[in-house]
């Protein structure tokens, strides 16, 4: 499809804006969740209004297919997050109910511990 020479092409990463890294799915994530161009442009400042219009036109013609894809991507990330968190340690999800001060303090402690470990490894005596 074509609008003012801006085209949606597929070069092996799903539909994307020709000459740009942004894909239809990148923009559709926000459109599907009710965000408008003003917000999407904050997120992706390199997206021009003309490119956005072209994506919207594509979305209107392929909405059902894109909704399905969006669902598959959500499922893929959900599975990936679960697998990662199950590994524990640095891979675990950080807790929600902690103040910024506590987060900073525990990071500082980890940095201190890591430095001690490093120095210990250097000087085993």
């Amino acid at each position, binding site marked *: 499809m074509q609008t003012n020479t801006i085209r949606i092409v597929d070069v092996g990463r799903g539909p994307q804006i020709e000459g*740009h890294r942004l*894909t239809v799915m990148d923009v559709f994530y926000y459109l599907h969740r009710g965000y408008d161009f003003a917000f999407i442009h*904050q*997120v*992706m*400042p390199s997206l021009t209004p003309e490119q956005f219009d072209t994506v919207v036109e594509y979305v209107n013609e392929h909405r059902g297919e894109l909704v399905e894809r969006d669902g598959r*991507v959500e499922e893929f990330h959900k599975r990936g997050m679960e697998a990662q968190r199950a590994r524990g340690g640095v891979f675990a999800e950080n807790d929600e109910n902690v103040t910024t001060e506590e*987060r900073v303090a525990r990071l500082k402690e980890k940095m201190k511990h*890591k430095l001690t470990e490093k120095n210990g490894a250097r000087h085993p005596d």
Partner: protein
Amino acid sequence: MPVILIDANIEGHGMHIWMRMQTVQWRDRTTALEVTLQTFREAGLNPASPDDVVWRFCQAHGHYLLTSNRNEESEHSLEATLRREGTPTSLPVFTLPLPDRVYYEPAFLERVVEKLLDYVLFADNIRGTGRLYLP
């Protein structure tokens, strides 16, 4: 010096995260870990680059890609590149699967910042993991 390269689909979020990392609470930790965030242009990478080129650029320069990539597993997708070219020592890609929450939930942003700095601190432990989620 760890560089986090901000993908085009998340540039605004990247700036939001960077501003948070520069606040009085986090600035000392960010500085101590020598973390910087860069856009593709700042890093000297063409913003139209395909995923495989971006991934190789990151590996060659020791950069971490920060993305909210939503491509599926087609031939030239980021996911296919990670699987095809990743090695046990490859640098991971940081993925923000719920990017809009960074704007609307300050507590979520704090968790993202903490997790990013955690990943950088434990850089040796996260090699070869492919994709790592935030937070």
